[in-house]
């Protein structure tokens, strides 16, 4: 029988949750790296036993951990994220210029195409690549040195590169998103980049047609239709049908179009999930009801999914990297909350149940479907 492994990064360590294909009984293993913030963990799609973890601390800096046995044992790999050349400067909150400075790794994306290649999205925003399993890292500096770099500025959480999407068949095409610079695309493996923010509307910036400056929270795609991208922006849920050349809003009947994560169903390219949050000042669900919203029409028309989720007095948040889908025939959806709950649905979101209730605040959730 196939297995399921959920990788949970929290404010105080990493947890590995395992089950079989039925996904009803779970084994909880952890905390790994207790006391450390685990911003993200993700396994290689080519070798699921290889898992990377971004371990970080305000005291002791950035550590990258790698497991080659499915998260049972871990070894540190390289943590030297040096910007290429002279780092230059970007905008600060007050409009002054500030030098690029490395803070932490927000997101690790193992390659779809090569088992030893992994990408790291970091704060201050830059993209790094390792071709030796994390033993060494090099910046793909064409992104940071894009002509708009000096105009980039941090969002409230920092100027982080948090989303890395790979084209399923073309290793040279990547999409990244940066808060609060926007989305970018490369088609030459990361040497050159193009901003892909046309159609985004952000009341927080003066020029609505600005090439950069939009606060993109998360992008996702379905591998069967990689030209269709879905975006949860600071405000607005957006869709592109041309690989990011243009975007249009598909927020439709959502009770709030603010939120962080967005995910696409494993087998239905037009089925999309978001978690609406009241506003950027509240950061908790609308009306104290934890509801995942599902669109089966690629956006615009959304239905609330509530069965098994708290529908009163719930004031948790769900962060951008904290939602994932598995590949089982009956697609599983998973998300983690700032209250330490990890919820799962084994039926595409119709019903939900907590796997765990009392972990530290959840920063990231990824899932592996094991054969």
């Amino acid at each position, binding site marked *: 029988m196939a297995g399921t492994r959920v990788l949970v990064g929290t404010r105080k360590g990493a947890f590995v949750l395992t089950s079989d294909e039925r996904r009803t009984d779970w084994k909880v293993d952890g905390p790994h790296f207790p006391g450390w913030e685990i911003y993200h963990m993700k396994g290689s799609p080519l070798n699921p036993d290889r898992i990377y973890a971004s371990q970080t601390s305000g*005291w*002791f*800096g950035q*550590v990258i951990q790698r497991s080659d046995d499915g998260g049972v044992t871990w070894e*540190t790999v390289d*943590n*030297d994220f040096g910007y290429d050349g002279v780092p230059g400067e970007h905008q600060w909150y007050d409009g002054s210029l500030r030098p690029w400075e490395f803070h932490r790794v927000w997101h690790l994306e193992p390659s779809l195409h090569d088992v030893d290649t992994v990408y790291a999205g970091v704060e201050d925003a830059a993209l790094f690549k390792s071709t030796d399993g994390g033993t060494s890292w090099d910046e793909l500096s064409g992104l940071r040195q894009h002509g708009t770099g000096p105009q980039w500025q941090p969002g409230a959480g920092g100027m982080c590169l948090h989303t890395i999407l790979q084209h399923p068949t073309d290793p040279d095409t990547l999409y990244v998103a940066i808060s609060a610079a926007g989305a970018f695309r490369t088609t030459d493996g990361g040497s050159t980049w193009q901003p892909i923010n046309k159609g985004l509307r952000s009341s927080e910036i003066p020029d609505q047609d600005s090439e950069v400056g939009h606060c993109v929270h998360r992008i996702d795609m379905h591998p069967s239709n990689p030209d269709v991208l879905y975006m949860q922006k600071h405000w607005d849920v957006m869709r592109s049908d041309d690989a990011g050349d243009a975007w249009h809003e598909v927020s439709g009947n959502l009770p709030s179009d603010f939120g962080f994560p967005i995910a696409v169903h494993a087998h239905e390219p037009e089925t999309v999930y978001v978690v609406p949050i009241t506003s950027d000042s509240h950061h908790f669900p609308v009306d104290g009801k934890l509801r995942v919203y599902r669109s089966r029409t690629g956006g615009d028309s959304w239905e609330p999914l509530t069965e098994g989720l708290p529908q009163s007095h719930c004031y948790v948040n769900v962060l951008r990297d904290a939602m994932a889908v598995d590949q089982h025939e009956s697609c599983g959806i998973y998300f983690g909350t700032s209250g330490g709950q990890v919820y799962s649905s084994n039926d595409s979101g119709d019903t939900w149940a907590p796997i765990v209730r009392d972990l530290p605040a959840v920063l990231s959730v990824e899932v592996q479907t094991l054969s």
Partner: protein
Amino acid sequence: MSPSVRVTLPPNLRAMARVHGEVLLEVPGEVTQRSVLDALEAEYPMLLGTIRDRRTARRRPFVRFFACQEDLSHDEPDAPLPARVVAGEEPFMVVGAMAGG
């Protein structure tokens, strides 16, 4: 043979280095913050970047160095450490600063 320099690490770094209690280091040449940390990172490379910056070699802001009831955090990295640390009579203490409320 010169005595070993004793180094204590905060719990998070002891766990990462997989050590219990004090670390004993053979430090070649003059015993300074820099030479002790060089020897520590050579013996335990997983600690690279956790005590001092990989690029600048500067102490991380929330890390402190104590020895012999003194705060040595702001001393020059190449200043000699106290004689009792050099003699192995007192540990060189790497401490995570109290912060966070």
